[in-house]
């Protein structure tokens, strides 16, 4: 067995171990930490599978943003966790749940193991038509050209998620800003960190979006990095989340899907098909759409983390 193969097996074992540790961890906070480590290890697995785009997304969204969301949830649940419920689920309920979980896992494993060695793939076709999109990164071509409608709907889901979070607000807070009103000064350590990191992070985020046309990267990953910078600035209390009825915020939230959908509809008139891009202008159109998606993602994710409005709106 070569060294790399041994490392791969070791990595897979560590992923399993961390997954098991996460499931059996006592307390929501410990489980969240395990989940974040699990996500980072998974992104290493994706790199070993030569799927750098997926690795970037897993690290940024799967591990980073989801981790922040879960830590926030764990912090809110801390009070509830201290007082354990009177009676947990009964033994038979646990047994049925465990059996169902084992059944699902076994079914998934069977499906993976029963796949033919040469699985069905559209990769040759995707690579063959890649020059027509003007892009060099087949993943970006799949996301923004081959299956654009799916990607639009994914963006719409993100907007719906923000609407769902905001809907948890009490009636009198509707339209207000998330987070408690607090006059505390910025946390000094975190403020320094945010001030040094934010300029670098914004540069990296825009870079990752821009190179995504030809190399691993893209709107999702770049937008997630920009979103992280805004989250850090808010956590350091250098800036506050805007009011949820701010018109500029709402425009930024829907800009991505709206521009994407408009470009798709314009394709009917200009290029003779829903989501067809005019010949010769494919790459500029794709980058134009992506730029607005980056904006929407960079605004959506921090709003999800900031949570529902908890202050009355200023008139």
């Amino acid at each position, binding site marked *: 067995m070569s060294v790399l193969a041994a490392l791969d097996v070791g990595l897979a074992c560590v992923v399993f171990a961390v997954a098991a540790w996460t499931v059996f961890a006592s307390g929501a906070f410990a489980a969240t930490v395990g989940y974040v480590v699990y996500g980072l290890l998974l992104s290493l697995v994706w790199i070993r599978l030569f799927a750098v785009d997926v690795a970037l997304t897993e690290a940024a969204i799967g591990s980073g943003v989801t981790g922040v969301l879960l830590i926030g949830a764990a912090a809110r649940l801390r009070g509830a966790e201290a007082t354990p419920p009177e009676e947990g689920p009964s033994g038979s309920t646990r047994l049925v749940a465990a059996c169902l979980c084992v059944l699902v896992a076994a079914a998934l494993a069977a499906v993976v193991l029963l796949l033919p060695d040469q699985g069905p793939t559209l990769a040759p076709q995707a690579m063959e038509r890649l020059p027509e999109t003007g892009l060099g990164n087949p993943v970006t071509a799949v996301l923004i050209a081959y299956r654009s409608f799916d990607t639009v709907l994914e963006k719409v889901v993100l907007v719906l998620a923000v609407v769902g979070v905001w809907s948890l607000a009490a009636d009198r807070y509707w339209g207000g800003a998330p987070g408690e009103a607090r006059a505390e000064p910025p946390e000094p*350590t*975190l403020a*320094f*960190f945010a001030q*040094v*990191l934010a300029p*670098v992070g914004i540069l990296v985020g825009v870079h990752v979006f821009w190179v995504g046309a030809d190399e691993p990267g893209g709107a999702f990953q770049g937008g997630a990095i920009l979103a992280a910078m805004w989250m850090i600035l808010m956590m350091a209390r250098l800036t506050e989340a805007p009011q949820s009825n701010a018109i500029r915020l709402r425009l930024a939230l829907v800009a991505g899907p709206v521009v994407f959908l408009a470009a798709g509809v314009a394709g009917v008139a200009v290029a003779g098909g829903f989501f067809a891009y005019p010949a010769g202008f494919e790459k500029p159109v794709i980058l134009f759409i992506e730029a607005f998606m980056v904006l929407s993602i960079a605004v959506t994710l921090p709003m999800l983390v900031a949570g529902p409005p908890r202050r009355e709106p200023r008139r």
Partner: protein
Amino acid sequence: MSLILNVFSVAAIGAGVFFFLAGTVGLLRFPDPLSRLHALTKADNLGLGLIVLGLLPRTESLLAALMLVAVWALVQLAGATASQLVGRAVRRKGPAA
């Protein structure tokens, strides 16, 4: 020349791996949060720094080398900040059992 560079790379990366190992052992074995943090920073600063140093001669371009150094610098910044925050939380609440 390439032999010297290879020996340098192996030596630096080996030393870096040693610091990661030592830092991990310290993280697992040290008794209280502050000394565990101390062990962790050795892995972050010296371990990663030496590995980056060992990889520098193997980069294909100046840009790639600068990116490696930038990665190390960013990890330094994040590690130092996280250590400060954890240390402050420990001082405020007292060491967790």
